């Protein structure tokens, strides 16, 4: 290998600073949430303790987090189920040519990159015109899907790109029906990726704010509840909640990674 040049060290330091920029702020609130009852919103730390983490689960003056958390979990589960199913089906179709493939592809991408306020406003207006009340489970679900479905679809498309069709053809040559081929060959083979995609979709939905914010209706999902807190909470309970929900997301992401690794390895072995 070549001797490491000066540019390597300069860029390595730059990269290190970038990671610090990326993770630094979140670690400051981790630290600030680990204070005793005399803790405040700023440094220096007054004392060490888990007081504020416990406070999150107490009855709050400003809001209740248990119910929004429940809503976010349920919504995330529904979004994951819908996004995973539809994206598996459509990315299987995209392996062959069919009419309308290109427009559908571009529309799906457009759903991802269209300014989020348009989705929010559009769904809001649509519900208004039809006289339907907005609700986190209806209009909120739509807003979540407009964002998670394209991402699940793009990842799935990549997965099926690398998928060897020979296994399917073999099964079909042996007389298996389409459904049987899918159930016994395709599904087991894509299972690791599917679990990974599912967990990531769930995380995206669980943390979604911008597209939902205008169409969630009367009841808040967790990110909306947290947003409401930012204006009127002046104790480290806010940071404690931030810490807990971020740790929850981290857990999901790591589970996605390890589930994928574990299942992929078991398949090879």
């Amino acid at each position, binding site marked *: *290998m070549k001797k490491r*040049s000066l540019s390597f060290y300069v860029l*390595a330091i*730059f*990269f290190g600073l*970038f990671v610090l920029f*990326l993770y630094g*702020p*979140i670690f*400051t609130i981790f630290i*600030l949430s680990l204070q005793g009852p005399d803790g405040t*919103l*700023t*440094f220096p730390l007054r004392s060490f303790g888990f007081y504020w983490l416990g406070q999150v689960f107490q009855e709050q003056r400003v809001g209740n987090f248990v119910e929004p958390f429940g809503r976010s979990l349920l919504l995330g589960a529904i979004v994951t189920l819908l996004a995973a*199913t*539809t*994206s598996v*089906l*459509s990315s299987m*179709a*995209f392996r*062959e040519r*069919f009419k*309308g*493939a290109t427009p*559908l592809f571009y*529309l*799906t991408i457009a759903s991802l*990159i*269209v*300014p*989020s*306020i*348009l*989705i929010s*406003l559009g*769904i809001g*207006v649509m519900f*208004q*015109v039809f006289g339907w009340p907005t609700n986190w489970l209806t209009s909120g679900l*739509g*807003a979540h*899907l*407009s964002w998670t*479905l394209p991402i699940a679809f793009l990842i799935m498309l990549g997965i099926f790109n690398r998928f060897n069709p020979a296994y399917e053809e073999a099964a079909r040559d042996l007389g298996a029906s389409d459904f049987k081929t899918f159930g016994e060959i395709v599904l087991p083979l894509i299972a690791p990726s599917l679990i990974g995609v599912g967990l*990531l979709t769930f*995380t995206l939905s669980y*943390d979604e*704010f*911008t597209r939902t914010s*205008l169409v969630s209706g009367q009841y808040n999902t967790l*990110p909306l509840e*947290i*947003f409401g807190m930012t204006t009127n909470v002046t104790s480290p309970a806010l*940071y404690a909640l*931030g810490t807990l929900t*971020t740790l929850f*997301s*981290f857990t999901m*992401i790591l589970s996605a990674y390890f589930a994928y690794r574990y299942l992929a390895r078991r398949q090879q072995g």
Partner: protein
Amino acid sequence: MDQHWKSLKPYLLVTPQTILILMFLVVPIIFIAVVSFWEFTGYSMTPAFTFENYANLFSSDVTLRTYLNTFKFVGLVWLATLLIGYPVAYFLAFHVPKLQWQVLLFLLCTIPFWTSNIIRMISWVPLLGKEGLVNQMLMGVGLIQQPLEFLLYSDFAVVLGMVHLYIIFMIAPIFNSLMRIDRNLITAAEDMGASGFGVFREVILPLSAPGIAIGSIFIVTLVMGEFVTVRLMGGGQAASIGKLIQTQIGSVQYPLAAANAMVLLGVTLVLVVGILRVVNIRKEL
């Protein structure tokens, strides 16, 4: 029968996705377009065909100023994400030796993307606030006497927040296009006597242009419609077109908000088409 099923199959498979995209992207945007011609009677909207909303919009000073401010955010965030994102992607693609490490470090950069935007923004408060860590440190070493007020609830904070939230959308496509560059091209250029910078300018930069273009499209579309960061980090004074629309929705002026949104969509499309004209991204897709 069997042949029939085979030709029908792809259409059945894409039906659910088509329905969802129609329901939650296409139809809502058609509704925005329609409602933008409706009348607003002070507390509700009624079907009509009037250009009044658009006329209001184009004759108002506020619109122009808000657009200029939004463009300022777009420009600054774009520049910052490019200048920070490119070296990061370059380091990962060319200086990290093993593929395993490249993937791992890239994943490290993507993890925050999957966490809550709101929390990521709140996290800046204890750092940048008036009594925040940055001010405490600067005052501690005697560089400043008064806390710097511009760090939080300012245009600076808005740009910083957006760069922090969205930079991965610049890094990922650039990293992707850098990884696809055939390493033999670089060796060839070096053998022909190109300097390190020459290789970068003549080989690497042109070949990574599609990645930059895709990243730029993401940044432009994300920032054009931004209203959350502007509200949380801008502290009331900062204005953007997304925030303006949000305010109009808040006071149920749907037709005006819709007209605004249509103009926003048009402007965003022009910017995206502009980027696509400069760089051909076909081969990346």
